[in-house]
């Protein structure tokens, strides 16, 4: 969706952390991206490289940790795996499924020098 804005958000978090934790260069960034978050990983990588140019994270490697999509099916009263936000329940085929996991967009960890 709006990977450029998200990449800017990542850089802001990195710069805030640099301010509080005193580091001068970031070499690796781990992002947790949920399967249902709507983030295109390739677009994210491209935007991250563009946004971090000449910044503290210039040249940093982006590692993506994928979080699986899960939902709560109202019909089955159970947690089911989901691959699409609007997908059907894999057990009963119904659509009364509330997404419970897989929408994460988090900066997990940095490797810094």
């Amino acid at each position, binding site marked *: 969706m709006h990977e450029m804005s998200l990449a800017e958000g990542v850089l*802001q978090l990195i710069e805030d952390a640099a301010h509080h934790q005193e580091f001068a260069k970031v*070499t690796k960034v781990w992002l947790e991206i949920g399967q249902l978050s709507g983030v295109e990983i390739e677009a994210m990588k491209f935007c991250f490289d563009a946004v971090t140019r000449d910044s503290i994270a210039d040249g940093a490697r982006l590692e993506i940790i994928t979080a699986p999509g899960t939902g709560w099916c109202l019909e089955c009263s159970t947690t089911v795996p989901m691959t699409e936000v*609007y997908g059907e329940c894999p057990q009963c085929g119904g659509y009364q499924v509330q997404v419970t996991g897989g929408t994460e967009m988090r900066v997990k960890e940095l490797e810094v020098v």
Partner: protein
Amino acid sequence: MCTTCGCGDGEVKIDGDDPSHEHEHVHSDGTRHSHGHEHAGDHAHDHGPRYAPAHSHAPGLGARRMVQIEQDILAKNNAYATENRQRLADRGIFTLNLVSSPGSGKTTLLVKTIELLKGRQRVAVIEGDQQTSQDAERIRATGAPAIQINTGKGCHLDAHMVGHAMGKLELADDSLLMIENVGNLVCPAAFDLGEAHKVVILSVTEGEDKPIKYPDMFRAATLMLMNKCDLLPHLTFSVPRAIEFARRVNPGIEVIEVSATTGQGMDAWLAWLEGGAAAARGQRQDSVSSLKHRVAELEAQLAARDV
């Protein structure tokens, strides 16, 4: 675009003005400084050394270490949104973020809503568009205060822009604030502005399968307004099918069918608005009375000590 502070697209204008303020920057060589920002596209100020070369021998450098962050990417926006939400709650202002595709009739619906609420409920409007202040002018013609945010190349409003716009608008206590987002069914879904609810407008001249084509937006919304319902006799659009698609992505979404042109369904929409406004007003009064109660308690304690 300011990619260093990232607090907004370089071309953002709020009623023609750049939102400019101080920022602190940490550069890759470890130096830190702060300076004012004009959020114009060209950066006139000098950023000094651009980045540390790989063989840098600056003191304290060298050892690699891990830093735990564990923060949401949208944390910054969400922090601004929380601040906006608190400012609005303190004043009992019921705020809606109106989202839709371009051409769904958002502005016409807003104008009609403001006219019908005249004398019953005060309304202020924040208008978001990439260019022009035509929409804000249409709102101002109704007598309601309105402010235009032009996002330039930006495809959505963010909480930082809205916070600035709120500061420029004359907001009355216990009023309604309508934020008309940029016409876009994708990006605005992810950006909390501090609103009480997102309201998605789907006009019946669009495809009834839009909710499953753009599920994020319909999942983020509390209410779906189906606009231009007066045109249904001329179309093949199936209302039940559109509702079914919307509930497939968001089982709890409420639906009201309206026509801003004929006024059909507007009563139900106004009742929904007034219900929300009454709740916001009630919460403010509750917090004011609890604060008064607390002040009275503290004064009593103080009086007891004086003795």
